[in-house]
């Protein structure tokens, strides 16, 4: 009952594993040093490629020697998880990372000083998850290609025909429902696409509204939702679709540091999981909104720039702040008052994570929060947020300490959102890259 595509993928992955682990075995057979050498998954070994807008793993490697008391456990765990995955591949199983945790978890008992000592292969899923990540970089393969499944939130509708498993599916014929993306998007084959761009909506409810309103039909778009933080399959699906058909990608998220962060995950990926970035990130993704300047215009930022001290501090971080195009807000004063939500401490901290402490310090004028942020001093932010456009957005955030949800735009009228806001922003190029 299993699809032919799956069977082929299994075969390929198992062979790769056998080949790579054979090296270790050979080393043992000739009584050498059994060592796993893999790229370091650390921040310091993460490189941002400005040109291609990708995070890459650097040249540093870490070694796991079975001879070293501090590394032996990790060595054992890596072999253990690899053997379970291999076993699943050849037995047509579809484990999840939670399954792998359960399957690998068992005790190792031995006698020490007259007492029976019990140790578990691992205690928490966090541990086995880390080992799986190690294995991904060690084998240079995504876990999905090892037929490891996971829960999947991403949905898509639009003029798009795909082949998944043994079926050909027309995603423009989903009625009021949607197509739920499979956990192994690399096995999807895109058959036919008739769209001008892809619109990714952070929130499922807004996706439902736009879908129901017929947005994708009217505007020739593919509509995708990640239903919050995007999972790996949604990211890979988006990347493949946009690459293979050269489609522009617009991200519609809340106007707050979490929304910006979701955009960032789609576009670049997580800085601590940079090895995924090369295949999961969509560097061409653009942030269409909701922008802080859509809410407030740019008066507040101009005011910040009028302050000499702030101006010189911001200019020392990035050039071109003065050359930014003027921006008009999409909301009236009164709408703003009703729709805006006060930012919380964690929003603020997330914003500092994105853009760095110095910009927060230059733009914030709430002294109490400023002193609370002190502990974040030294955070430099992500390179891809160090652009004049993003600094303007974040500065307005720091100054107003406000955020706004996409729903607020929908509240102004679904027509406004669907037929005015989105099309106008796309046609006028009012996005951030």
């Amino acid at each position, binding site marked *: 009952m299993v699809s032919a595509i799956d069977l082929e993928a299994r075969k390929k992955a198992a062979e790769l594993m056998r080949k790579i682990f054979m090296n270790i075995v050979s080393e043992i057979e000739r009584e050498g040093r*059994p060592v796993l050498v893999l790229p370091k998954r650390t921040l310091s070994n993460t490189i941002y490629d400005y040109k291609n807008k990708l995070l890459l793993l650097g040249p540093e490697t870490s070694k796991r020697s079975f001879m070293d008391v501090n590394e032996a456990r990790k060595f054992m765990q890596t072999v253990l998880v690899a053997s379970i995955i291999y076993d699943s591949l050849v037995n047509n199983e579809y484990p999840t990372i939670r399954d792998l945790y359960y399957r690998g978890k068992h005790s190792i008992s*031995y006698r020490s000083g007259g007492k029976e000592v019990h140790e578990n292969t691992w205690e928490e899923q966090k541990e086995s998850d880390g080992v799986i990540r190690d294995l991904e970089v060690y084998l240079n393969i995504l876990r999905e290609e090892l037929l490891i499944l996971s829960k999947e939130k991403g949905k898509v509708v639009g003029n798009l025909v795909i082949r998944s498993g043994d079926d050909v599916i027309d995603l423009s014929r989903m009625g009021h429902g949607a197509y739920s993306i499979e956990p192994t998007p690399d096995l999807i084959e895109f058959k036919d696409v008739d769209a001008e761009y892809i619109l990714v909506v952070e929130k499922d409810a807004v996706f439902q509204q736009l879908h129901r309103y017929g947005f994708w039909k009217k505007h020739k778009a593919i509509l995708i939702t990640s239903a919050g933080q995007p999972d790996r399959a949604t990211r890979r699906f988006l990347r493949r679709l946009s690459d293979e058909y050269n489609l522009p990608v617009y991200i519609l998220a809340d106007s707050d540091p979490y929304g910006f962060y979701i955009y960032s995950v789609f576009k670049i990926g997580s800085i601590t999981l940079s090895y995924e970035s090369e295949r999961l990130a969509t560097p061409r993704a653009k942030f269409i909104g909701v922008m802080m300047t859509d809410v407030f215009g740019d008066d507040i930022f101009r005011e910040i720039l009028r302050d000499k001290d702030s101006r010189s501090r911001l200019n020392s971080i990035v050039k071109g702040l003065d050359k930014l195009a003027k921006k008009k807000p999409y909301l009236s004063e009164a709408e703003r008052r009703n729709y805006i939500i006060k930012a919380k401490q964690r929003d603020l901290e997330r914003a500092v994570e994105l853009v760095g402490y110095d910009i927060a310090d230059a733009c914030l004028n709430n002294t109490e929060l400023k002193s609370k942020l002190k502990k974040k001093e030294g955070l430099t932010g992500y390179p891809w947020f160090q652009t004049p456009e993003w600094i303007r957005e974040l500065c307005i955030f720091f100054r107003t300490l406000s955020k706004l949800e996409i729903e607020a735009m929908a509240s102004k009228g679904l027509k406004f959102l669907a037929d005015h806001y989105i099309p106008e922003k796309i046609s006028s190029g009012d996005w951030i890259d």
Partner: protein
Amino acid sequence: MSETPVEKYRAISPAEFFYKYREIAGFSNPARAIYQTVRELVENALDATDAHGIMPDIKISIRKVDEIQEFYRITVEDNGIGIPPDVVPDAFGRVLFSSKYVLRQTRGMYGLGVKMAVLYGQMTTGRPVEVITSKPGFKRIYYFKLRIDVNRNEPVIIERGSWRKNREWHGTIVSITIEGDWGRAKPKIKEYLFKTAIVTPYANIVALTPDDEIIYYPRIIDKIPRPPLEVKPHPHGVDLELLKQIISSHNYTSVEELLIKGFQSIGEATAKSILQQAGIDPGKPVSELSDNELLSLVNTLKSMKDIRAPSIKAISPLGSDVIIAGLKRVFQPEFVYAVSRRPQAYQGHPFIVEAGIAYGGKTPMSDDDKPIILRYANKIPLLYDEGSDVTTMVVKEDISWDHYMVSFPAPIAILVHVCSTKIPFKGVGKESIADVPEVRKEIKLVLMDVLRELKKYLSKKAKEEELKKRAEHLAKYIPEVARGLSVIVANGSKDFEVKLVQKLVSIISRRTGIPVPEIQQVLESIRIGA
């Protein structure tokens, strides 16, 4: 204007004053009173023995002596130097009469203690104090029954007598009957005796309680701390009033003589330099000194640099042997160590800080944030206000326990003893030592001394254990690694797995130097769970 009273002035005797305000000396209620009485008598007993080089034998008895009322008779017997019979009435019946008003380390509170107990007894039970005493070499033993005339602050002798000694006995037996609250006082009294026993391992202490319990701490060492001697005042500790007292109580002719003979640490050269600085002629007769000159002299004395530190003859540290013996006596620890620091001075008073540490054995588990702390000042245990004591501050703020491989709770007790001619107590209750920088520094240093030793011990112990575990830590993973690799490259072949196991054993042995049989032994004990 309403009816106004006439002011009636009157003088009261010290006895009447302390009778009225007995809480000053700790006699605020029956529970405190019985505790305080035991304490005063025990400390007098120790002062009469160890301060004179005698190995103390102390017998304490607390008996309920009235069927209805809570009257307790407290008797403490020592084998000390005794009290001259002519002094006994004043020593027990006159407030502000004591052998403790000299510059020398003694136990006890203000020299008031035993008189307060006598006063408290006669106000609650009406019973007089009874004293039996004899000095070494005396032929007779003397017996007194006394009370205090509160108005006159005079002893009233109710009965006295003496008899010939049958055997060579010397010492003092004091019995006082007071209204007490044994139930509430009991834990504190037991804690007091326990902590006293720690710093007097050279003493036999036996106590009989109203519950017919016998508490016995046998002597375990034959060494006594050097007794303290009286000394003259040190220049840094002088004030105007003290200077005038020194002048009036001796017949010094010149100012120079006053300085050299009236103080410690001043020789001829120093005296000259002091007087030059104070602008006073060294030959000037003492009686002709003006008030301004006296003031100037005091200021010069107090602030004079380059003066010898105060003499330490007046203070009596326990010494590391005594501390070690004491800690062994109560904790039988697996590790014990103690250090006496060299003398230091603050405000003209010499002081010495000592510390001991006990680890493991029967040492109880400490709290989550600090070790068990045993605090002593001039050999007296401090039982209250631990939180505000400088030692607690040092323990919590100045010491990086991690650095010494200690994480709490741990079976660790530390003992800190501060001895001085003047302990910088915090508050009138004398239950905690204030945060004086000089003292704090010494406590920190002494604790670092003993903790360094503890660390050595702990790290040696840890290293031995680590070596033993090395083989285990590598070998235990062999079966799992062999099985896993066999699954991936050899369809889980058992033969292949066995081969990998042998190879891994030999690799480990070769690379780490652990013998193959030792690895095999671990290997055989391994069981893999489901």
